């Protein structure tokens, strides 16, 4: 714990969204949309034309930005860049996998749950008994 970086206190942090059109529209209606002076947004609309590279770049950008505290990502989009999402383990920004219209939430794919799944595996029980 001592090695962990101190959690910075932020007075007005943003919520970033990487999701399908309707989900992004909904969250923009709820007021999370932000456009900075360079016209950079805090959301990415993913459709059939969006490349995996674009999603990767957006994810990297949002997780590197200091003004973002939570990144909402549709689970089916997260599945496209699973290696990146699973390897991310910083407390801030927190990555939350959310359901989308066509893809219901599956706890088996959630990166946080797969991280803690170890405690429920036979491996962990066996290693505890050894």
């Amino acid at each position, binding site marked *: 714990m001592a090695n962990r970086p101190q959690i910075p206190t932020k007075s007005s942090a943003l919520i970033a969204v990487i999701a399908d059109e309707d989900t992004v529209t909904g969250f923009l*209606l709820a007021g*999370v949309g932000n456009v900075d002076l360079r016209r950079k947004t805090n959301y990415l609309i993913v459709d059939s034309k969006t490349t995996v590279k674009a999603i990767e770049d957006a994810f990297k950008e949002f997780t590197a930005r200091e003004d973002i505290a939570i990144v909402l990502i549709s689970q089916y989009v997260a599945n496209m860049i699973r290696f990146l999402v699973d390897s991310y383990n910083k*407390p801030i920004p927190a990555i939350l996998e959310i359901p989308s219209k066509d893809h219901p939430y599956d706890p088996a794919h959630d990166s946080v749950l797969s991280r803690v799944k170890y405690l429920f595996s036979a491996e962990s029980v066996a290693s505890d008994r050894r």
Partner: protein
Amino acid sequence: MESHKESQEGGKEPESDFDGIHNSENEEQLQNQRQIQKQDDENVLNFMDSLDYYLTLMDSLSSTLREGWMELASARHSMGASRISTALLDLKFHHAATCLLVTQVDSIMEVPHFTLCKWASLTNGNSRQRKHDENETVKNANSLCARQRATSPSFELQDKSLPSNGSSLPADEQVQKERSKSLAVFGTLVSPKLRASQHSFETALETLIEVANMRSLMLFAYDQVLKNMAGKKDP
């Protein structure tokens, strides 16, 4: 017989003293072990509770989002697909009307805590000022609460979210203004379904903040359980 008994008792005395010390040491050890076990159990319970709550919240989030999408689809049906499109989104410089406040639960538990500040636009200086004024009024009205607020960080957080709760009229007006501003992207006269959708997504956002907080607690509890397990393996 009596003398024999006495001699036996007399012989046992130093042994019983030794046993007493030994027993008390054992009891202390047992108590320590019990305490450690209790702490371990507590950590496991915390972890299981947070995991359960996380899954429950995700379930509730799914149904809220489903409602939101349904209402958005209804709004699109009544207003036309061209009027509810991402092509209409405002790409000019503007701040988010809804943002987050990130704090640490306490110095020992390095767990981030997120608080949602709904409709607190930075671009509108008046709104901030108004909210600040309202906080001052509440503080003056109740000195006891003010004292508690000064000592407890949770009271401060409640305080900041107070205006968005709609406790007083000016804040309500401000919130309505911000909501209308957000809806105005899709036109001046919008379908009530779009308003309903906005409300659903606001609720979803509140649930998401709870999910984020529960996620932090779950990961903290998980770390604790892992530490205990590692401690047992390498005493």
